[in-house]
């Protein structure tokens, strides 16, 4: 090492590489020989300095790189540590600070790809060496690139109008940016609109939600797209283009005042006996709740926003026979319009927030619990409606025969924590079950039994609420409800529902006869989450929920730039957590939009014009329409501002005239060469003791 301080004499483009092997505490150093890897790297071509260090991402680690760049005149750096998704940006920034071009930095992942997955110490060391060698060979060919700027449209598309979507929309709108709030149901409000009370504070769900719903609807910066579907999405960060389908309501929005004349007369109420008995109160319910007596012409709730009914084509008599027309006749304003068609429009936004929520578990799948088969076995969702003051019974808890139950069992974990259905914990069910228990005790003089596996109450005020409910005399049985039977063993059991469970505290089987059984159904990803994910470029995890960029550090971001997550579409959570995440997503979207433009990766495709044959193969293939054809020169040219570096054209060009910057053939071939180097080249043979000379 002749070059030391001051100004080393180096040829300008000669690669001078520094290699840094991170211990990551014991995450890497505990599973492979970091010393040996660093030493081996020192012997690779063009490597000027190689070191190992405990925590490369710490400020000391970063300074180490910066100092070396200055001291040794490094123009290439390899950090061999964790996944690039975690710290590539960190190290690139360090390199930039020291005056190096950040694209001449290369990350070598020896943690996720090596130490965490390779058990054998020697093998892991060898593999790490190969990974480092590959990166070192590649980085020598990394060219200096420039970041590009893209402008960000100051508008957001919020997909999903539940509490998370509403919160995100309001935050952004209040900051002065335009928001499109898209909801596929006829009304915004989501699942929360059907709750009676919320835990643990027991405040009325409608009272806290409905003001937000109307605020969103009336906000000058929010455009409500209710009863609309996202059909297509194109574009990229800052410049998304969405095709929206507005579904025909068969109601003229400009004429309708939401008076209710039409839905009152629709003869299509689902006509089970139970429904008829419960019809006394308000008639209108959500279609997911089976006790809902819903007509073909209906409004989801009386607090619906927008307050417009919708006619369901599939069940409406008019669309089948051309007759009926009761609603048409009942509407004095002439707002019913059977000829309405779906309409389409395009909108352009800079950022997207996904808040599509969940669906509840279908209790019919657990046949042994009897939902849909045994009367008075209902889901928690149905209980919410039953208990709701604007529900069919006006908030009275009644059985199908119109009598109040004298005993109620609540079964936790239905469809959750169960290998047959969902392995995940739905997180909200323990708490809402306690809330249900409280509501039953409050309204009725009934015995309440809770069958639980574990009581999970990790939240502010949650454990306290659990104690309160226990004090109210609710009987807790630690054992999963295994079956509900209507077959009595004794005359006393006649007419009852028997809940069977193994009481794991008493170590015995229990059989508890009750009048009503409430199934605490879990949360599942929406059925079409995968389809939406494909459209957005956001993937779903094992349990089907959308994957965040980082489980701890970026829970509201996705891998797709400019697209954020809020609420239960990312995983089960309660209202406070959904709202908090919505705020985070909105804040991050705002931060992007406020900048007006952001820099994006310097990678893009480039056409070598002398090699281009003018075949035009690439032009229609580019999904971002980034390729122009220059007719007078008869060549294709990529517009770097639009190119997203997807590589489609690179692979398609029959003349191999297109290069993906940062991913050129020579870089990839060098990477392979590095990985496949003979072992003896990677590790120097140990020097015999007493031999002259020696390594660095």
């Amino acid at each position, binding site marked *: 090492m002749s070059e030391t301080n001051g100004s080393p004499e180096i040829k300008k483009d000669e690669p001078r590489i520094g290699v840094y092997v991170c211990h990551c505490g014991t995450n890497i150093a505990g599973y492979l020989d970091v010393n040996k890897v660093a030493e081996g790297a020192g012997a690779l071509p063009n490597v000027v300095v190689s070191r190992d260090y405990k925590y490369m991402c710490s400020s000391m680690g970063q300074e180490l790189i910066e100092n070396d760049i200055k001291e040794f005149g490094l123009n290439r750096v390899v950090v061999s540590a964790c996944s690039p998704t975690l710290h590539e940006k960190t190290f690139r920034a360090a390199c930039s600070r020291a005056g190096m071009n950040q694209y001449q930095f290369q990350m070598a992942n020896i943690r996720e790809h090596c130490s965490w997955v390779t058990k054998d110490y020697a093998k892991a060391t060898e593999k790490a060496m190969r990974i480092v060698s590959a990166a070192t060979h590649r980085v020598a060919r990394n060219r200096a690139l420039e970041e590009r700027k893209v402008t960000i449209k100051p508008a957001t598309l919020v997909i999903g109008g539940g509490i998370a979507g509403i919160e995100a929309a309001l935050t952004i709108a209040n900051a002065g940016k335009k928001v499109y709030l898209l909801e596929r149901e006829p009304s915004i409000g989501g699942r929360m609109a059907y709750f009676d009370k919320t835990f643990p504070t027991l405040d009325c769900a409608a009272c806290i939600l409905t003001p937000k719903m109307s605020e969103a609807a009336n906000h000058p910066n929010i455009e409500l797209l209710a009863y609309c579907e996202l059909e297509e999405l194109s574009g990229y960060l800052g410049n998304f283009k969405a095709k929206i389908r507005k579904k025909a309501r068969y109601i003229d929005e400009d004429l309708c005042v939401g008076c209710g004349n039409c839905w009152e007369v629709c003869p299509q109420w689902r006509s089970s006996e139970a429904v008829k008995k419960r019809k006394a109160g308000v008639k209108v319910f959500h279609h997911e709740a089976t006790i809902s007596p819903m007509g073909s012409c209906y409004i989801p709730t009386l607090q619906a926003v927008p307050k417009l009914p919708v006619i369901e084509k599939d069940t409406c008599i008019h669309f089948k026979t051309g007759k009926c027309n009761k609603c048409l006749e009942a509407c004095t304003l002439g707002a019913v319009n059977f000829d309405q068609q779906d309409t389409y429009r395009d909108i352009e936004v800079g950022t997207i927030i996904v808040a599509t929520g969940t669906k509840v578990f279908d209790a019919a799948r657990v*046949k042994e619990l009897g939902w849909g088969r045994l009367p008075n076995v209902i889901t928690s969702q149905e209980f919410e409606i039953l208990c709701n003051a604007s529900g069919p019974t006006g908030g009275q808890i009644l059985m199908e025969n119109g009598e109040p139950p004298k005993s109620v069992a609540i079964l936790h974990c239905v469809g959750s924590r169960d290998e047959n259905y969902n392995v995940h914990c739905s997180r909200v069910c323990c708490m809402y079950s306690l809330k249900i228990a409280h509501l039953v005790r409050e309204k009725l003089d009934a015995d309440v039994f809770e069958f639980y596996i574990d009581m999970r109450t990790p939240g502010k005020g949650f454990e306290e609420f659990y104690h309160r409910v226990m004090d109210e005399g609710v009987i807790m049985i630690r054992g999963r409800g295994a079956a509900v039977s209507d077959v009595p063993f004794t005359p006393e059991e006649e007419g009852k529902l028997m809940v069977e469970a193994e009481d794991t505290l008493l170590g015995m089987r229990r059989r508890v006869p009750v009048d009503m059984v409430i199934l605490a159904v879990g949360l599942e990803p929406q059925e079409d989450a995968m389809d939406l994910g494909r459209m957005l470029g956001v993937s779903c995890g094992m349990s089907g929920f959308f994957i965040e960029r980082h489980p701890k550090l970026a829970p509201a971001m996705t891998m797709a730039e400019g697209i954020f997550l809020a609420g239960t579409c990312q995983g089960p959570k309660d209202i406070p957590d959904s709202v908090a995440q919505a705020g985070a997503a909105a804040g991050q979207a705002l931060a992007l939009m406020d900048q007006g433009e952001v820099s994006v990766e310097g990678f893009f495709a480039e056409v070598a014009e002398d090699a281009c044959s003018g075949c035009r193969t690439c032009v229609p293939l580019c999904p971002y329409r980034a390729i122009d054809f220059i007719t007078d020169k008869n060549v294709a040219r990529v517009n770097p501002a639009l190119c997203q570096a997807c590589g489609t054209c690179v692979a398609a060009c029959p003349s191999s005239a297109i290069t993906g910057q940062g991913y050129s053939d020579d870089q990839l071939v060098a990477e392979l060469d590095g990985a496949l180097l003979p072992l003896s080249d990677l590790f120097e043979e140990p020097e015999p003791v007493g031999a002259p000379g020696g390594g660095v």
Partner: protein
Amino acid sequence: MNEGEYTWYPGCSLLGNAKSYDTTTRQVFELLGLSLKELDDWNCCGTAAYSGMPLKRAIALSGRNLALAGNIGKDMATACPACYKVLLTAQNYMSENKLLKEEVCAVLREAGVEYTNGVPVRHILDILVNDVGEQKIKAAVKNPLKDLQVACYYGCQIVRPYALFDDREDPQTMDRLLKWCGATSVPFSLKTRCCGAMLMSTETDVAVELSYQILETARRAGADCVATACPLCLMNLDGYQDRMPQVRGRMHMPVVYFTQLLAYAFGIPVNKLELERNLEPVDDLIAKLEGGAVNV
């Protein structure tokens, strides 16, 4: 596979307490024009008891049957759910565990049997619904089971752990077969609930309770009889009705093999169905069947 030809593995129960199952299965197959040739020199499958033995021994026992049937090359049909399950399990172990397979093959070789690749093990419900099918069954019906309300009870082993031809929680094959014969299958939620099985001899109270649930559910659903595919289920459900709770009076529920009903529908006279082997009187059922036949 030769179409319409099967190797018959009756298993021990069908030679003893479930003789009527054997007789009526053979009758049904014959009337449908299927050949059912009993496996020569078969041995006990080992059932649940022997599964507790060291793996090699248990698998070798069933492996011998699989080897013998494999050499014939026709699908092996069985009616007893325990045999079905145990043979399938052995087959699975043999195909998934190479070491075990070698050991078992060596054992069998010593006994003069060569194990090649085993043989498809089929339950007769599977064969009747999927190989024979609706058209041929309907064509064979002479005495439609008109007005007969049946609760179809499959027991736990036909669909567990291997649900190869039917749903684990809500199987349908027996329901479909009997419907094709003109019967009504009542809505019945305990189709695959355990009857108590071997517990009947050691923990009788527990088992009686389980069997009672099944029968009481069938009774409340309006069933005239329970049809089953399992000898042990039939024994438990049929034999202990006098010891069951009497919330709605004493239980009198005829429990029959589904093949007995099929055979009857295909024209076998009632006195050839061996219904007299049942412990609980079946007079009501016979009256119902014969009454139905007269009305046709």
